[in-house]
């Protein structure tokens, strides 16, 4: 079981770079990278809200639950 972060997919769809997105939502590029690579252990509602706002999407577009694989996020 794991949570898959599809942030890079949404970023590609909206044609936005990591640096620009990090600046817009007010987190560091390093933290955004942690989120993108699935190393994050938790995500704040405020960060999720800012991501959904900037990427014009729903939380479900960014996060996906999978039964396969080990728990990472």
């Amino acid at each position, binding site marked *: 079981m794991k949570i898959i972060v599809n942030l890079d997919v949404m970023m590609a769809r909206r044609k936005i770079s990591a640096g620009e997105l990090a600046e817009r939502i007010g*987190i560091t590029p390093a*933290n*955004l990278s*942690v*989120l993108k690579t699935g*190393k*994050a*252990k*938790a*995500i*704040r509602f405020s*960060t999720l809200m800012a991501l959904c706002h900037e990427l014009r999407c729903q939380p479900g577009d960014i996060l996906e639950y999978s039964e396969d694989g080990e728990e990472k996020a």
Partner: protein
Amino acid sequence: MDWNKDKSVRLTTVFTILLAAVLLAADVLGFIWMPWFISASAIDSSHLPALAATIYTGSIFAWICLYTMFRLLRSISGGEVFTEQNTRFLRVISWCCAGACIVFLVSVLYYPPFLIISAAAGFMMMIVRVVKNIIQQAIGMKSELDLTV
């Protein structure tokens, strides 16, 4: 007085160095104060080698403990508090306290008041272990917090 946590760590470091100086003096001047201690505390003079063994064995634990405390304080003053290395330092200190506890407990056989030192060392071991467990828990919480975006 403008007091802050850096000065507090520095003060503790000074106390550690002072304690090391006292311990060094006690070790070097053992041949003077141990016979005096034997006569003052009415221990049989045949127990002088046993007393020396107790003091110098205890001294080994004390030196390891002081050196580890010094390294721990340096780590804390460098801003590294919740690290695995610090828990290792605390583990070493707790085992030194346990060692001293056993040494003085055995020494009760020829000088019963050593039971107080043994109990104090045992109690200190428990306190240090609790602090170590708290820091270990805090390390887990910190790593989780670090990975919260």
